[in-house]
């Protein structure tokens, strides 16, 4: 038994052999193959990957990071945040502010410092909170700090007061709704309902150029991979087990001497950081960030991705984020009026019919197949016995 315990006590690997193989294979396809198929074959070739697909795939990678971030808090810590769209949008706005400052004199009004919308509002100088955003490292810091601090403050008050279950969902919905209203206001200084757009370049590269788009796409995929490994690191650690314990029996965890507040706060803040990073990668690829990203419906949609993909597995969330957005892209082109019904239907189906999501269904199918195999073997054995 001692040997068994020694084995169990070993730090758990991030992924097993099969997991690493799949991880590296998918990474190779997305990071090497996809860009090559875009660059190498001629436009007429059947192998050619069309230019418009690159930013689309980049967008899916951002959604996947966002889904992953929600799965960390919902699937593992039991916190159903319906405000993750807000963390995503804050990261996006921080990136947007950097991109606005890069425009310089190339704006419609040609002001060297003020973005167009400020000139339009007759503002004379840059507000204090826009200072520093011309620096990329500073802006990246804000991509983390804005959502991180909001999550820290909100989580601190909510978790300490033992706000759980549906109440935490309501609080986070209210948070994103409040931010939606605030960012709509022109005098907030974030471009009102038009948001931030007309970006020209990022780190000196023209933002519309195909090579920049490939670069942004590749960075998004790499960041997705790193975020996945980081989440695995957390969930494979003892803290991961504490989070599961908090999810399943929060009060019991207290009587063991752990503070659920600390564990939840850790997960919530980390998750908000990931959502912020996703938003920051998203904005240069879609070319705009506006208050619509704060809409409560957006945050609910993220929860649906995770539920449909399969929560508490990390890769299920990624799968859900990508698959549902694929369907969305296709449907909003083919039959836009159907999209909301399909989304609602998927959500209802995932709660009633496949509560463990796509990942759970695959697991069930495998179990069923193995069972069938076992029965077949039994039958064979019985038949042989009968023949003897």
């Amino acid at each position: 038994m001692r040997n068994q315990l020694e084995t169990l006590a070993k730090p758990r690997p991030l992924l097993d052999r099969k997991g690493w193989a799949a991880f590296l294979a998918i990474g190779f396809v997305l990071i090497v193959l996809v860009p090559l198929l875009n660059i190498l074959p001629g436009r007429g070739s059947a192998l050619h990957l069309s230019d418009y697909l690159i930013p689309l795939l980049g967008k899916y990678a951002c959604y996947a990071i966002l889904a992953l971030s929600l799965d960390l808090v919902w699937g593992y810590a039991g916190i159903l945040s319906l405000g993750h769209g807000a963390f995503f949008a804050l990261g996006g706005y921080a990136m947007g502010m950097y991109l606005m400052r890069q425009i310089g004199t190339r704006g419609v009004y040609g002001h060297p410092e003020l973005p167009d919308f400020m000139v339009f509002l007759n503002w004379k100088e840059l507000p204090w909170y826009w200072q520093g955003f011309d620096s990329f490292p500073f802006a990246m810091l804000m991509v983390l700090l804005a959502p991180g601090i909001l999550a820290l403050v909100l989580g601190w008050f909510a978790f300490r007061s033992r706000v759980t279950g549906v109440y935490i969902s309501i609080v986070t919905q209210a948070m994103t709704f409040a931010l939606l209203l605030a960012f709509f206001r022109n005098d907030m200084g974030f471009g009102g309902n038009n948001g931030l757009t007309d970006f020209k370049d990022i780190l000196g590269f023209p933002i519309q150029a195909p090579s920049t788009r490939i670069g942004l796409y590749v960075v998004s995929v790499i960041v997705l991979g790193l975020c996945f490994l980081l989440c695995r690191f957390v969930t494979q650690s003892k803290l991961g087990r504490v989070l599961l314990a908090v999810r399943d029996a929060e009060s019991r965890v207290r009587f063991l001497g752990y503070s659920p507040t600390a564990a939840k706060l850790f997960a919530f803040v980390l998750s908000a950081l990931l959502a912020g990073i996703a938003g920051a990668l998203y904005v240069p690829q879609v070319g705009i960030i506006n208050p619509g990203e704060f809409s409560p419906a957006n945050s609910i949609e993220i929860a649906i991705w995770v539920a449909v993909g399969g929560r508490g597995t990390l890769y299920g969330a990624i799968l859900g984020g990508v698959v549902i957005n694929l369907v969305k892209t296709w449907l909003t082109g083919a039959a836009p009026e159907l999209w909301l019904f399909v989304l609602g239907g998927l959500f209802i189906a995932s709660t009633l019919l496949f509560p463990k999501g796509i990942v759970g269904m695959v697991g069930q199918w495998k179990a069923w197949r193995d069972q069938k195999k076992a029965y077949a073997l039994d039958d064979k054995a019985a038949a042989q016995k009968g023949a003897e």
Partner: protein
Amino acid sequence: MRPAMPLPSVLVENATAGLAPEVVGKVRVSDTQLYLDGVSVSFDGFRAINNLALMVAPGELRTIIGPNGAGKTTMMDIITGKTKPDAGEVLFAGRVDLTKLDEVAIANLGIGRKFQKPTVFENLTVFENFELALKSARGAWKTLLGRLNSEALDRIAWALDTVGLDTKVEDIAGSLSHGQKQWLEIGMLLVQDTQLILLDEPVAGMTDAETKQTAELILTLKGERTLVVVEHDMEFVRDLGAKVTVLHEGSVLSEGTVDHVQNDPRVIEVYLGR
């Protein structure tokens, strides 16, 4: 069943440090492991605990009986910080005021509890349940980077053996039988390194054989740890052979040996018709 592992004696020493010279009857308050006096709590005007007094010595095994609704579970809620009393004194080791602390701080003092309804972490394995209960750093960062050392494994191995779950190490806790879950919860208290153990109806739903084994286990712990056991099963209470406190309507009705309380006319009256 193996004998209990020796405990760090620091808590026991503290208990006898003699800070408060206050004396109740023949016992000094500072010599008690657990001390409750004048404790009352009401829920919506209903007095669940009414001027309750209780003293348990270090290393003592105490059984608490009383009809349903007598306030036994509520008393444990008060000791472990789940419920704050409206009035009264609750001291641990004769000097720590438990009414000022929350559940987490109280657990970290070395007070462990088994709930009336077995609550283990159903989605985790037996090993993982023990791993969580293990006395070790509890901060978020510490648990993110923490590793189990050899001494920790010794404790887990010993606890698995003591509660007889050594063949179920990798089983999911949710798949255990009711009795095994009860034992897992007791085992978790053992690795948690608690000085004071509160057991709320530990043999509810157990077979007779399991009940006997549990009594044996509790008896091996007696002396090493302070135990307060709430139970209905009089056979089991008899097996434990410890001092019995009878609760009724939130206060102590009678106290003494099993025979003493069973022959106490007031106790007989309360249990009449049962």
